[in-house]
């Protein structure tokens, strides 16, 4: 059974990102957004399995030792893996179409990176992107009108961001 699932995963992944359109998906496996640029020399399977270890290693050498020429950085990821929505606009982590969320939502593993790191390539204005999909937050708890407006927006906005 396990072997079957693995084979199925391998099969799905080997088809490559985005070859299955969302509306006619034939499996419950995640749709991995298409990437640009050269493929990983080590293969996608290697990176899927080891990306966290690689990034964790390189983040420490960058931060602690100042090594800026590293292989695995979030900035590096987004050079190729900046997923776009249907309108061709780069999406932030708030959107379900974000590259990281494709698999992380699927396996229900929370990504902590984007509390501090930007989730798009440099130069993209995340404020503009988020403003389009996120309800405006009230100024403070005493701002009753603001809170009501916020709650209304939260209700009317679909959770599928970036559409």
């Amino acid at each position, binding site marked *: 059974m396990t072997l079957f699932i693995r084979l199925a995963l391998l099969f799905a992944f080997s088809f490559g990102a985005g070859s299955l359109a969302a509306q006619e998906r034939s499996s419950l496996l995640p749709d991995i957004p298409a990437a640009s640029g050269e493929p990983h020399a080590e293969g996608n399977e290697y990176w899927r399995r*080891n990306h966290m270890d690689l990034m964790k290693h390189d*983040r420490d050498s960058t*931060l*602690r*030792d*100042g*090594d*800026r*020429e590293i*292989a695995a950085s*979030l*900035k590096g990821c*987004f050079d190729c893996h900046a997923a776009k929505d249907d309108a061709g606009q780069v999406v*932030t982590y708030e959107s379900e179409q974000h590259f990281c969320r494709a698999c992380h939502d699927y396996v229900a593993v929370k990504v902590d990176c984007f*509390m*501090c*790191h*930007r*989730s798009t*390539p*440099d130069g993209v*204005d*995340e*404020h503009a992107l*988020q403003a389009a999909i996120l309800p405006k937050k009230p100024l403070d708890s005493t701002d009753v009108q603001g809170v009501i407006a916020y709650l209304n927006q939260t209700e009317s906005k679909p959770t599928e961001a970036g559409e």
Partner: protein
Amino acid sequence: MKIPTLKGADISRRDFLRSGAAVATATLAPGVTLMAFGGSEAHAAADADKRWGLLIDANKCDADCDACVSACSKENGWAGEGNPETDPQWIRKITMQNTSTGREVTMPMMCQHCEEPPCVDVCPTGASFKRVDGIVLVDKHTCIGCRYCMMACPFDARSFVHEPVINQKSHAPRGQGTVESCTLCVHRIDKGGRPACVEACEATGHEAIIFGDLRDPESDISKRLAQYPSVALRPDLDLNPGVRYTNL
């Protein structure tokens, strides 16, 4: 004043490699690393033989100028919302008056990059740390947001991120619930550059901030420190900060 001494003639492996030729490394497979001489330039990294510092000349600093603050804000992607008590303050302009003579002095204040940083001593998780080249940083991956470092800092140099943040610069991650402060533009230094505030001050023509290696007796900053009187803030605490002031 404590003058940082040059370390002995112990040459690290990294220096040895660097002195010969530029080094390129490649990972062939996990655990197998190929090191090749020649090729691309060596990785610029924190160097234990250097100690980065700033020298701020209060006489050259203009009270009406905040080029250093806005340059820092732009470079590192932080901005205030008009409340100085909760806004991020990586660098700020201070104007103060001598209580007995009435003389006014103005100058920028930022993390003083102490040699013996109290924030590093008190941090329970080791998130506050000092690089080998003397730059004091917060590792936001292990910061739990307890703010004890802010209690310990003698210079009010650190701020707590009070609100959710997006659109950070990729070289300056910052996020809600963690503590942050001046990084001395470590991302620029690692590539051989200078902090944004120093360049901005120079561009205005004031040249009130000088950046350099305190361990190198031939550097501009060391020569000036050797020649003219300068002070460290809170000298009573004996923290030997990397940021020095003259004409206070």
